[in-house]
């Protein structure tokens, strides 16, 4: 398979403009003749749906929750990057581009990332026009803060609820189009298959989560905005319903999956505290602006934090990385936390935590200033842990947060299946091997507001489309498969719950395919997952019936896909015999324990094509060509 990224020619800064001129257009009168299905209503899905409808396309938008306002983009706290340079600190499109490429450890496509940096400014303008109440200075102008991996202040924010506000903005634009009759919103549906006709994506099969009915929906193009797959680890900061199923079903229909092993472990989360725990909670990276990370110098020091004198504390990030200090990128911060805990310097009941301390910031700026910036985060921390972070330092530990891997897409955001577009976290395109903070919101909205609406037109204008009714044989077959699978879950009648399997899978993935990986561990995990998958189909217990609101059945489908997908992640991790960004293979480290890349052999996107159940997937690679930046060992010292 030839993977052509379809990157426009010409100088980097001119590619997007040239592309927009050269791409074919659909005339305004013809747009309404095209039906477009959008799956997911996070930042990418809601913004794409609204914008496509504004352009005149007939849009049908699906979401798994009861309302399109709830997708997990809503939980993003800290902010959204843009190259506005309002802070006058030397920012530019080029710098945002460079920081993102470097932050991703040189494993992302130059042209995509440059385009992302270019449209970043328009996102802020659009969001302000929609009424997003961004933080402002007393003069009434927009305020900025700093995030990891950057030495400029380019992050726009709405208290600790930036994702919520941006999502509600996109949701309101979506509802406006729904009112205008341009978007049909179909909530409480889960996409369970992609339907191809003559090799093109022409529709989806969904399950109505209230009635259990299996439904077919056809269109001229399908846009997946279904988020990331961090829940393969069971415990993550993702919402409970976040899953890989829509993407994985597309993979099984022929869409190539890129870099599945790239998983971001976020350094500042509330530590794990019990077996019953259902999810982990993130504490925004923005806290690292004012909080200082430390551990006791002496391993096993169990004194309360305030009794440990200054000279017996190790502010290890500040000491090791003097120029970025507490604001090193996430992968670096996470690995260092693990390293400190592995040395026995971890704190708290389990010893798997480090302190994030605001004592100095409160002394310097006063409690009120800190409360204004982070009040809701401090409150959330106190609710969960029962401790007051104004008085005692927070305890944090890394947790699975974001997945850089995703379905492979070209410059048009189209997958290897013609007519299947993939946006936001669900695609692989912009973050390389590590995403910088405040870049996920930027990418989701860039894809939805400013990229897809242009690129999809070129696809539609270039093809002619025969009508595909929903009783087409391809739909009937896909619906029959979906129905059979649902019935199979209910028929097993075993002795273990779905969550029990999920939890065990999560342990395997976290242990062997988490923050640090070894070939031995990965090989072992592969066998363990295969065995667990075998047991799942013999011993899972799914109560209730299919024609009903049945949450256990929903979860069974998602976990069954995770049990296959986890193995794909491990296959990918084993194939990448280097370390880069979040993928750390212990055999490949610099002397200072940083990820050591092998640009000669691994400067590529690893792409996997489905070859059949229980068969090894077929490997393809898209070489990454860097014409504008020099590949260097990342240094944040």
């Amino acid at each position, binding site marked *: 398979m030839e993977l052509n990224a379809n990157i426009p020619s010409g100088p980097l800064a001119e590619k997007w403009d040239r592309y927009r001129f050269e791409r074919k257009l659909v005339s305004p009168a013809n747009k309404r003749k095209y039906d477009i299905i959008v799956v997911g209503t996070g930042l990418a899905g809601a913004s794409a749906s609204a914008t496509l409808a504004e352009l005149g396309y007939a849009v049908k938008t699906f979401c798994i929750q009861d309302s399109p306002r709830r997708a997990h983009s809503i939980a993003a706290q800290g902010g959204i990057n843009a190259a506005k340079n309002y802070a006058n600190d030397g920012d530019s499109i080029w710098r945002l581009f460079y920081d993102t490429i470097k932050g991703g450890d040189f494993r992302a496509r130059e042209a995509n990332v440059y385009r992302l940096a270019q449209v970043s400014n328009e996102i802020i*303008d659009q969001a302000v026009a929609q009424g997003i*109440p961004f933080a402002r200075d007393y003069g*009434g102008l927009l305020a900025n803060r700093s995030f990891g991996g950057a030495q400029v202040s380019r992050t726009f924010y709405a*208290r600790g*609820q930036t994702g*919520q506000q941006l999502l*509600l903005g996109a949701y309101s634009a979506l509802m406006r189009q729904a009112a205008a009759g341009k978007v049909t919103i179909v909530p409480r549906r889960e996409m369970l298959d992609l339907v191809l006709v003559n090799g093109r994506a022409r529709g989806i099969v969904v399950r109505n989560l209230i009635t259990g009915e299996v439904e077919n929906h056809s269109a001229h193009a399908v846009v997946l905005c279904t988020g990331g797959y961090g829940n393969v680890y069971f415990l993550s900061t993702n919402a409970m319903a976040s899953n890989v199923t829509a993407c994985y079903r597309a993979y099984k229909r022929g869409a190539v999956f890129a870099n599945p092993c790239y998983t971001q472990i976020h350094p500042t989360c509330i530590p794990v505290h019990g077996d019953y725990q*259902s999810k982990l909670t993130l504490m925004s990276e923005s806290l690292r602006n004012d909080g200082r990370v430390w551990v006791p110098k002496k391993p096993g020091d169990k004194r309360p934090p305030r009794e440990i004198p200054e000279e017996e504390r190790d502010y290890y990030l500040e000491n090791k990385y003097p120029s970025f200090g507490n604001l090193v990128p996430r992968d670096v911060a996470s690995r260092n936390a693990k390293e400190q805990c592995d040395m026995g310097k971890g704190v708290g009941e389990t010893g798997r935590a480090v302190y994030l301390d605001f004592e100095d910031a409160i002394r310097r700026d006063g409690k009120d200033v800190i409360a204004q910036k982070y009040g809701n985060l401090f409150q959330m921390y106190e609710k969960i842990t029962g401790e007051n972070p104004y008085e005692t330092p927070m305890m944090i530990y890394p947790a699975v947060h974001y997945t850089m891997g995703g379905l492979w897409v070209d410059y048009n955001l189209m997958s290897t299946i013609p007519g299947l577009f993939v946006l936001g976290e669900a695609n692989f395109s912009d973050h390389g091997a590590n995403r910088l903070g405040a870049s996920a919101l930027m990418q989701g909205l860039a894809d939805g507001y400013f990229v897809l609406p242009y690129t999809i037109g070129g696809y539609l204008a270039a093809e002619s489309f025969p009508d595909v009714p929903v009783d087409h044989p391809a739909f009937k077959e896909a619906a029959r498969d979906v129905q059979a699978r649902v019935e199979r879950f209910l028929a097993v009648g075993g002795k273990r719950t779905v969550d029990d399997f999920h939890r065990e899978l999560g342990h395997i993935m976290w242990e062997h395919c988490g923050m640090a990986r070894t070939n031995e561990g990965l090989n072992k995990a592969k066998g363990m997952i295969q065995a667990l998958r075998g047991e799942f189909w013999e011993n899972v217990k799914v109560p209730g019936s299919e024609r009903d609101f049945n949450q256990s059945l929903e979860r069974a489908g998602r976990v069954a896909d995770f049990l296959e997908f986890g193995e794909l992640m491990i296959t990918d991790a084993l194939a990448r015999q280097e370390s880069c960004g979040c993928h750390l293979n212990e055999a490949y480290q610099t002397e200072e324990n940083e990820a050591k890349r092998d640009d000669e052999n691994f400067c590529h996107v690893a792409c996997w094509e489905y070859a059949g159940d229980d068969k090894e997937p077929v490997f393809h690679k898209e070489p990454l060509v860097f014409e504008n930046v020099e590949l260097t060992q990342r240094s944040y010292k």
Partner: protein
Amino acid sequence: MSKTINLTLKVWRQEGPEKKGRLETYPAKEISTDMSFLEMIDVINDRLTLDGKEPIAFDHDCREGICGMCGAVVNGHAHGPEKGTTLCQLHMRHFSDGDTIVVEPWRARAFKVIKDLVVDRSAFDEIIRAGGYISANTGGAPDGNAIPIPKEVADTAMDAAACIGCGACVAACPNASAMLFVGAKVSHLGLLPQGRPEAARRVQSMVDRMDELGFGNCTNEAECEAACPKEISITNIARLNREFLKAKLFSPHS
């Protein structure tokens, strides 16, 4: 330090919108006080599943208090007894060994029960659809700093915009009124200069839709404010009333 407690749950079970519901009693033994309320239900559900019974259906997603998907009436309080807390952020350390806890769905004419604790809140989407937006097509927006907005105004708008659309205000109100939800959105958008051009049309359209959908009237009980997990202030209802009156008296759209 965590410890465990034993509780008795009385949970509303209802197979479907047209079926008759009833409270069923379940023992909740050895519940860690570090658990969230929803994690406690997860544990009960695991036990029910293994006993061959149907687990309790309940909506939930982010489990960090921001998506607005979860919610139930716990011992008579929407989202439980802790102030400013969603059900997913309510932790079991606030309960005592031996407690009996009654768990029921939101009850309102506009929110039909789907199953057990799950209700249909699509009426909220309907209200937003009626005008809870600023009409600004993608592209062509002026620079983000083109209109300075005083910090106090942006902050007050943000206070109102923090609403998560969970429906606790409706569940807590003796009249099942949605005035706090509507007031929060009308305030958020109406306070900002970008939202003024459509302010009169917006408030009338949203209030009309709210009435059509079967929500009750506001009689200043202030239960909504007390139950709101985001502590949205009841002053937003006052602002809604002012905006509505102003629109009715002076707007050409009325």
